[in-house]
């Protein structure tokens, strides 16, 4: 801090401390109040999380109290038909498999594309190119997901139908690709940050040993930044699992277990949208099933975050 550069600031600071009315008790009291205000703000996020969890857990409990529902059916069945048919079945795997299919497709696009772009931006791109590419990526990240959903339904799917045979109008592939495009800027931007954070001395040492640009990027910088890159990947996976609007518009509404990406699937989030927008009579078992699905979604994302933390610790490289 160049202290001499701002005489106004230093006089302002002096004025504060020279205030003749400052009493020790007043200052202490104020410090305590500020301290508690800050704690309160920090606790707000915990409060929200806990209350959401509480509601989820309570309503999920209600769901399992219904005579039609058993835990064995919920965790052991692949049939999810809460409203149709004579035998209602609540097998969560039908919805989980839809979510997984979409996530795998999305990640197959977002991860390689994002990582390669990040390596290019961080290691190869001239400054001028980066100055153009970075804002474009940020624009991509700012597009509302409903636009992506419409794009998947009206543009990606017709293109797929021209290339592949037997592609449904609502299909996992189109929705998955759109989710992949959505996640791509996240992966790219976070990975690039991680790559650029690798100290310059490492690169210079590698060049000094006779490494080519590619050697340096892949064999030195990438492993050094691995922890950050894995964080980026996991964030993208979590985003894909929770993505709602795209799958609600473009993936379809038929919950079933399949690995064929040309078929229509329903994800956990997609089911919640469909049920929440009209089709449901309040306080029946279908209504509570919403919470059970939400709870499962929560557990899934939480597990992912925990794994992420463990992995990140294990791969962390310190260069201080």
């Amino acid at each position, binding site marked *: 801090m160049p202290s001499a550069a701002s005489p106004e600031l230093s006089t302002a600071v002096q004025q504060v401390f020279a205030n003749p009315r400052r009493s020790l008790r007043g200052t202490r009291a104020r410090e305590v109040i500020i301290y508690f205000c800050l704690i309160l703000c920090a606790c707000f996020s915990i409060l929200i999380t806990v209350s959401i969890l509480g509601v989820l857990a309570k309503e999920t409990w209600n769901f399992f109290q219904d005579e039609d529902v058993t835990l064995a059916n919920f965790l052991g069945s692949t049939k999810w038909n809460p*409203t149709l*048919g*004579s035998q209602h079945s609540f097998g969560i795997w039908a919805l989980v498999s839809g979510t997984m299919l979409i996530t795998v497709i999305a990640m197959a696009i977002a991860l390689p594309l994002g990582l390669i772009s990040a390596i290019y931006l961080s290691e190869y791109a001239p400054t001028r190119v980066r100055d153009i590419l970075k804002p474009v990526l940020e624009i991509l990240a700012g597009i509302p997901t409903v636009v992506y959903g419409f794009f998947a339904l009206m543009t990606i799917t017709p293109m797929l139908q021209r290339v592949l045979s037997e592609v449904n109008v*609502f299909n996992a592939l189109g929705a998955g690709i759109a989710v992949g495009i959505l996640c791509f800027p996240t992966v790219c931007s976070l990975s690039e940050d991680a790559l650029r954070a690798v100290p310059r001395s490492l690169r210079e040492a590698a060049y000094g040993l006779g490494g080519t640009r590619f050697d340096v990027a892949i064999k030195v910088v990438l492993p050094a930044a691995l922890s950050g890159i894995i964080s980026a990947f996991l964030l993208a996976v979590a985003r894909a699992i929770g993505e709602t609007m795209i799958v609600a518009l473009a993936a*379809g509404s038929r919950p079933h277990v399949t690995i064929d990406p040309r078929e229509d699937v329903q994800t956990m989030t997609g089911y919640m949208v469909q049920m929440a927008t*009209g089709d449901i*009579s*309040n306080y029946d078992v279908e209504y509570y099933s919403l919470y059970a699905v939400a709870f499962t979604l929560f557990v899934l994302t939480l597990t992912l975050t925990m794994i992420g933390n463990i992995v990140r610790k294990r791969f962390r490289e310190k260069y201080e």
Partner: protein
Amino acid sequence: MTNRALPFIVSSRTGLLPKLAAIGLCCSLWGCNGTDSTAGKNTGAAGSGSAPASDAADLEKFEVNTELQGKVLVDGSSTVFPISEAAASEFAKRYPNVNIPVGSSGTGNGFERFITGQIEVSDASRPIKQDEFLKAKEAGVDFVEVPVAYDGLTIVVHKANTWVDQLTVDELKKIFTEQGMAKNWSDVRAGWPENPIQIFAPGTASGTFDYFKEVVAGKEGELRSDMSTSEDDNVLVTGVSGSPHSIGFFGVAYFEANSDKLKAVPIVNPKTSSAVMPTPANIESGEYSPFSRPLFIYVAASKMGRPDVKRFVQFYVEHAATLAQQTGYVALPQEIYDRALKNIKAKATGTHYLTAEGEKRSGSVMDVFQDANRTSF
């Protein structure tokens, strides 16, 4: 949201963008209505499309009344939605200060909101059920039952479907019920292609679903559980028009509006054994059986003292024939509208479709919708 209406929304390709455009257009037209009555003429022409000139002329002449104020909430069947929307929008031209938002959350949900007193008018694509009637009785929500149009529940396939020439009720059973569970088209009739059938159906809370289920699966049976369902008929249109091996069903208006993208299947009349298309003439004569059905609105009797509700409902019934035709449905005989109007004026409450013992009455509207059949509480 009153001016969201007009039948041509239904004729939009898949909904969203044209709908937005329509909202903008309607807003601008509605805005100049108060001062210039020729604006109504323009909107009427844009909305009608195929309606006969004499009927359209009937809707064009009106005076604007800005004194009547109020809000009439309408919700229920997505099948009746186009008619109610058209009625609300026409009414809003005459009474610009009455706000009439129309929802489409399904017949079952509509009745639920109706019975809890949240809405004034409930759209229904089937008559009230016994349990709903009992709940209404318990809650003390007395109502007037008004048939507004005929609908031919239309079974549709993809435009490029060359094999389905007609379907019998038995074949529909094979496709749609739990007992049938046909996987491929070849399971329905020998010689049809071995491609998996994809089914798009309205949501379980809709009257269309109930009606179809009762006709195809019977009172005890169930429809299969692996169908794609949506409350939004436009999603079903998108689904069927985008999948070559698909089949779906919804109200005839949604087919009429999308006939360039879909193919309606002639249904074999079980009595005459001849295949019948859901044309207006066939629906009105009852020839299109068993899928021709009346559509209703239910009006809360306790709210009919309010001038806004009363005038709206009267207006609705007086113009129901024209509105139904404009939106792709079939008008009921004038006699029925006259009886309904008489019931509204006399506040004659109750349903005609349940006996005093709670048994369901069925038959043509002319036979059932009579004073002698009315059951109230």
